[in-house]
């Protein structure tokens, strides 16, 4: 895979009237890498993806993909891109199989070559048994897989997955994740937007955390969690707020009220000291668990992902 097909976003801005939806986002995506845009609804993820493939015109900044610069050369760049948009835009006028063969026509893949490629992709996403079904007869998970198959018709060098598993059941999500990991293994660069932490943590090599159109932090999921929170977190109920606040302050730990209880990070060095101190207050519920991206987001933004 040529390094020339790295995608680079330079200082992307998008404003609608007075509202800045995306503010100065820069990053790169190399072949064989999964980069995640993680943020709550309205953080600017979909707008950013739109700028990457050319349907959102940046107010400032540009995207370089190989020798093509977007938005001006989006049409040319998309010949090497696969795009799974958030909204379902499969063709209800065609069967599953024809959704692929007819869309292949737009890439100049026609006749027997189109039928062969459609067959390969249906096998890849385990939909070959539904080839003659109408799109309306598919489940949500099957539709997402078919959109992914359609995005791979041209054997793209880079794939955009915009909230690909929203609304899917756990089995369908696992199935989708397997496909994404296979794509990565084949050398494809993947940009994933999601508000699911488990998805981001499991799939992404690097993450950009977005809030209100800005990158508030970035790094690998492991590094982000370790740097911002630490290794472990305690979830506590039934202990007075002031006691926990004092405890956190005295040990340099992060503390936050959460739901009907509290969260407190356990220091990487001597976590037992804090843990035992909490336990000494006989909380009604006490849970010790590994820190995760939800904690990172909560600490950085003060809000949970939704």
């Amino acid at each position, binding site marked *: 895979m040529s390094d020339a097909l790295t995608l680079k976003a330079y200082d992307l801005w998008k404003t*609608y009237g007075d509202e800045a939806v995306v503010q100065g986002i820069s990053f790169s995506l190399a072949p064989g890498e999964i980069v995640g845009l993680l943020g709550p609804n309205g953080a600017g993820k979909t707008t950013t993806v*739109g700028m990457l*493939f*050319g*349907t*959102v*015109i940046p107010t400032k900044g540009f995207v370089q993909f190989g020798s093509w610069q977007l938005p*001006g050369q989006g*049409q*040319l760049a*998309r*010949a090497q*891109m696969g*795009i799974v*948009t958030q*909204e*379902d*835009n*499969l*063709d*209800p*006028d*065609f069967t599953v199989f*024809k959704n692929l063969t*007819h*869309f292949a*026509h*737009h*890439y*100049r893949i026609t006749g027997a070559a189109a039928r062969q490629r459609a067959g390969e992709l249906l096998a890849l996403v385990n939909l070959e048994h539904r080839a003659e079904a109408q799109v309306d007869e598919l489940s949500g998970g099957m539709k997402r897989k078919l959109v992914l198959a359609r*995005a791979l018709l*041209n054997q793209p060098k880079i794939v955009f997955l915009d909230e690909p598993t929203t609304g899917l059941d756990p089995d369908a999500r696992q199935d989708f994740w397997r496909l994404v990991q296979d794509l990565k293994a084949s050398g494809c660069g993947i940009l994933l937007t999601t508000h699911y932490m488990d998805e981001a943590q499991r799939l992404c090599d690097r993450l950009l955390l977005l809030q209100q159109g800005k990158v508030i932090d970035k790094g690998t999921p492991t590094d982000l969690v370790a740097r911002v929170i630490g290794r472990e977190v305690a979830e506590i109920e039934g202990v007075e707020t002031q006691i926990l606040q004092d405890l956190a302050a005295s040990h340099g730990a992060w503390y936050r009220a959460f739901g009907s209880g509290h969260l407190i990070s356990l220091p990487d060095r001597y976590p037992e000291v804090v843990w035992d101190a909490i336990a000494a207050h006989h909380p009604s519920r006490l849970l010790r668990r590994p820190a995760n991206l939800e904690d990172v987001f909560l600490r950085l933004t003060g809000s949970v992902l939704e």
Partner: protein
Amino acid sequence: MKLITATPWGVYTVWWRHFQVYRSTWLVNCLPPISEPVVYLLAFGYGLSPLIGEVDYLGQMIPYARFLAPGMIAIGVLFQSFFEGAYSSFIRLNFQKTWQALLTAPLSYTDVFLGDWVWAATKGTIAGTITGLVAVLANLYDLSSLVLSLPLIVLGSLLFGAFGLLVAGAVNKVDQVNVPIFLVIIPMFTLCGTYFPRDTLPPLLAKFAALLPLASLVDLLRWPLGLPPWWPLLLLWLIGWMVVMARLAALRIYPRLFS
């Protein structure tokens, strides 16, 4: 809106997609352009002919059914191209998101727009031609005249297809398509000289009707019966309408896809 270059393949492949949908239900799709003119010709041609006999058109007396036939061709062109451009494109744009899907492929906005437009014009051309063939079979229009009228049928289809696309880009709800139908399409197809010569209308109304593009198309399609001396202006008038409609349609639809 930036002018983005279209490619012949890009326009063709979008058109081809729409043709595949049409082909899959060709029997249903062919029914309206065949049945409509047959019904009109039977109802108005044979029903009214004994009452009307002949009409005075450009100073000569013409059997009513022969006068009516070119009007029916124009109506076939108008309805099929306008409805494809308005309703079908609106559905592809707002419900099926076909335009949005096509723009994830290596196609430009201009490719997708032209593909939709040419497809709307294709449907108008099919309808106009089938209507013409029905008129030929009924001995109301000559086959050679129909062949020579094909460029006019295509031009009219492009014009009304562009008008349909403009409506698709201008309205927010599918029901709102009814507004231009009642305000423009119905007055046009009743007043523009399709069913009766316009000079039977009050002078002011006749002048207004003559300005509507269907009037020019009908007058030009009646060329085997005679042409008004200013017919080249009618042709230019149609081309002008088409260019303006297409430009306005492209400007209205673009912001729905690109932000």
